[in-house]
């Protein structure tokens, strides 16, 4: 593990065509890393995430994705993801293949991936139309004979998460709603963690998990790198932005203009935030 710049980490660790997971369950969504993937023009990515929201809408709308593996895709508490819908309903900017699961199936697939198992087992998908539309098999309990669902483990090429902080050795600490971040890092062949700050010492905290430096390939400083999501103990969720995204993302032109202004034409997360402030002032 090394503490490197986010642009170097993305350049060295993410290739076109990779299977990439930017995970996070509402909290700690790695927006800065998603923006860097867009700036560097990654293509044909298979994107995995339980709850694709704004950052995946942006990646899809900018044509970075070939396929989406997910269980719930929307703008939480606001509405649909217009770029995701446009890709699925009209193939704009390109066709998007879907592999659709339930949350429980995705969670089991993440846990299996982290555990080095080829599949996860759950009591699920039963009698739904999902079963016919996704990668799920039935498996019989060898003791009771009970019929259960098996999902293939997630094993991305690259797992990307955002955390509150890391120490100078690259040990990562996150707390609050921890979602599937640990699993996403452990299940991936390579991993990138963006953090709010680098500290000398990771003082223990209630409800914190630590990812030791030797399971992380790159730690990158990205202050406010989760915006419009939040970092528990650092800043709140920008609920207004999620509401605003509804209008920004509705039209292709406005979406593209917004992405150019705030992502493509900004160099990093610092300039991204500066550009947002200017827009508000203007």
């Amino acid at each position: 593990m090394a503490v490197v710049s986010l642009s170097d980490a993305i350049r060295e660790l993410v290739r076109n065509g990779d299977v990439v997971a930017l995970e996070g369950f509402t909290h700690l969504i790695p927006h800065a890393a998603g923006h860097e993937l867009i700036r560097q023009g990654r293509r044909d990515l298979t994107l995995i995430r339980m709850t694709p929201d704004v950052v995946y809408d942006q990646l899809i709308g900018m044509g970075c994705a070939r396929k989406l593996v997910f269980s719930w895709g929307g703008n939480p508490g606001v509405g649909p993801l217009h770029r995701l819908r446009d890709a699925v309903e009209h193939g704009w900017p390109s066709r998007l293949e879907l592999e659709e699961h339930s949350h429980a199936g995705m969670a089991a697939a993440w846990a299996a991936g982290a555990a080095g198992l080829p599949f996860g087992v759950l009591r699920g998908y039963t009698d739904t139309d999902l079963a016919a539309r996704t990668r799920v098999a039935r498996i019989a309990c060898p003791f009771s004979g009970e019929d259960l669902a098996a999902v293939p483990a997630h094993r991305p090429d690259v797992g990307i998460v955002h955390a509150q902080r890391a120490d100078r050795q690259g040990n990562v600490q996150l707390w609050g709603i921890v979602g599937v971040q640990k699993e996403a890092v452990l299940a991936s062949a390579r991993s990138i963690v963006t953090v709010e700050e680098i500290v000398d010492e990771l003082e223990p905290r209630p409800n914190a998990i630590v990812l030791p430096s030797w399971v992380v390939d790159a730690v990158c400083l990205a202050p406010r790198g989760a915006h419009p999501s939040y970092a528990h103990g650092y800043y709140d969720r920008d609920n207004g932005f999620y509401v605003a995204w509804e209008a920004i993302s509705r039209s292709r032109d406005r979406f593209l203009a917004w992405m150019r202004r705030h992502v493509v034409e900004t160099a990093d997360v610092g300039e991204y935030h500066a550009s947002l402030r200017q827009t508000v002032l203007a």
Partner: protein
Amino acid sequence: MTGYTADEMMAVEASRRLAEGMVCFVGIGLPSLAANLARRTHAPGCVLVYESGTIGSKPVELPLSIGDGELAETADAVVSVPEMFAYWLQGGRIDVGFLGAAQIDRHGNLNSTVIGPYEQPLVRLPGGGGAPEIALGVRDVFVMLKHRRRAFVSGLDFKTSVGDNVRVVVTDVGVLEPVDGELTLVAVHEGADSDTARAATGWELRVSEDLRETEPPTDAELRALRALRTKGAAA
């Protein structure tokens, strides 16, 4: 007595069905409103579990998303999402699960995946999320849904979750409960009648012989409800 909205009527009616000590798996929007209202009124010991991993959350303001920080800060425990679905939901520890949907059929099966054919959808919906296993894993499923013909359909475009455990459907017109395996109108809200419900239902709706009228929200319920909405209103 002050006026109230259809949403408020739905939240109040759903909240009344939650009892002290019940463990509820809660989604965002009306379910969260209903469960939090119950905690502020007749069931302060009602336990709120959010799929983001928070167990026993006691939010002061309504969260806009199921992952808001306040849900973690006020929780008895916060667990990982894999643990939530494996140990807590699949483990059979949840009494009540709330579900919404774009479509429901007479058996309580729900569609939150797609309108139109799956491969060429007219409307691509968010997808199942927790619904398929919530519908299987909790004791009682409560559905909250606006009563419209396009939502109450004779045939689903896609079956996202199964209706076996659906005990009640609360709409803005009234209340449906399964009778002999078919959703039946058992109550209507103030100002509505069985015709209102029939007109808004895409199948030949059964109506209970002893159709009740629901109790309108009390002033106390409305005060508690509106005190909660500050943040939720943003959505």
